[in-house]
């Protein structure tokens, strides 16, 4: 259990930012990692009241506040059909509604879990992260080298192109053995593969190539590894099939 020595409620994002740069200060959002963290005593820095929650339409983009819980994303009426429906598809197998009513978008991004289907879908959609000090950066850049900063919002195009999402798991609520998301826009595919078990990565390639060739390349080029759920070899063998399904629009409600 997370051992708090103090709970601080900063009055501003600036104060929160400065506090989180101090040693042994931990951001508090949904709190779902509290039970799983057995570490050194730490000062909790409350962020819930400082960051936006909810999904708003801003021209051609969606703004997703960092304190938006995954359940909100899962049930938003505007995300049930169309190309953005890979977002609900990417979160609905995470245990149950009670957990998804706690996990925040900001927490999910900050945690950078390798088995995250949500991050995989976001990468394919070319999501942007709005950071408190660092401004707007591609989510890919943030995930590869997370700066000491606070994720305030995510930005996603409302019409990102043709999309698909496919994951393989041993049982309904299990973490994925492998997951893939694809997005075709203006002649270019963005294909993200996660739970390899390494942190999700994205590749781009021209749509002029045959889908099966692209999918086969993904199986060969994404680094795979062994863990309790599957071997690297198994993941390499199933990768082309799930990438192809994602490219063919699986997981998208039309």
């Amino acid at each position, binding site marked *: 259990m997370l051992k708090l020595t103090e709970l601080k409620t900063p009055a501003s994002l600036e104060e929160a930012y400065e506090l989180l740069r101090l040693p042994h200060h931990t951001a508090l959002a949904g709190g779902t990692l509290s039970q799983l963290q057995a570490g050194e005593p730490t000062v909790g820095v409350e962020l819930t009241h400082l960051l936006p929650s909810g999904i708003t339409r801003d021209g051609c983009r969606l703004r997703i506040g960092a304190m938006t819980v995954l359940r909100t994303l899962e049930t938003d009426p505007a995300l049930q059909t169309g190309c953005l429906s890979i977002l609900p598809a990417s979160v609905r197998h995470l245990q149950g509604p009670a*957990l998804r009513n706690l996990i925040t978008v900001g927490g999910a991004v900050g945690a950078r879990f390798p088995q995250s289907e949500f991050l995989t879908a976001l990468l394919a959609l070319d999501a942007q992260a709005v950071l408190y000090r660092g401004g707007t950066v591609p989510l890919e850049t943030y995930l590869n080298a997370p700066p000491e900063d606070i994720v305030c919002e995510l930005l996603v195009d409302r019409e990102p192109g043709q999309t698909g999402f496919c994951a393989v798991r041993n049982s309904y609520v299990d973490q994925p053995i492998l997951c893939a998301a694809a997005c075709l826009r203006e002649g270019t595919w963005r294909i993200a593969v996660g739970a390899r078990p390494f942190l999700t990565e994205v590749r781009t390639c021209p749509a002029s190539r045959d889908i099966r060739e692209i999918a086969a390349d993904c199986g060969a080029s994404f680094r795979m590894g062994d863990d309790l759920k599957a071997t690297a070899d198994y993941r390499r063998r199933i990768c082309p099939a799930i990438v192809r399904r994602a490219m063919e629009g699986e997981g998208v409600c039309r």
Partner: protein
Amino acid sequence: MQVSLHVNGRPVTWETTLSQTLADALREHGCTSVKCGCEQGTCGMCTVWLDGKPVLSCSLLLCRLSGREVTTVEGVEPQARVLASYLVAEGGDQCGFCAPGYIMTILAMEKEVSAPVSEETVQAYLAGNLCRCTGYRSKLRAAVKYLNRSQNGTV
């Protein structure tokens, strides 16, 4: 430290620490329907409502919940009894340890769906609620019959 919040419709001010979970606090103050099953936020037995939405009370620190509204089975007893009657009729009660979490999940689901409700939909809602005894079939039957009771002509 003290925290003021609403529990089952009543304003309360409770003494707490920086490490006390909502689940422990609720049990300490008499809401013993709340069960701790896994201590990791994975079993769903500790499910309560926070501002009307189902959450895992073992993963929430009471000290962060000032001003919030918490509901347990004790706060929805009339409706819980109706659902429980369906559970008993299907043989789904057994040890009863997971029942409060199950009840809070199904009653929350009832606010979000309208009949006819399929077993598949119920399974998706109950995916985060483990049960050691029943093998789930009886619990699913009970939930489906309860949620569709207006269509079945039963109350």
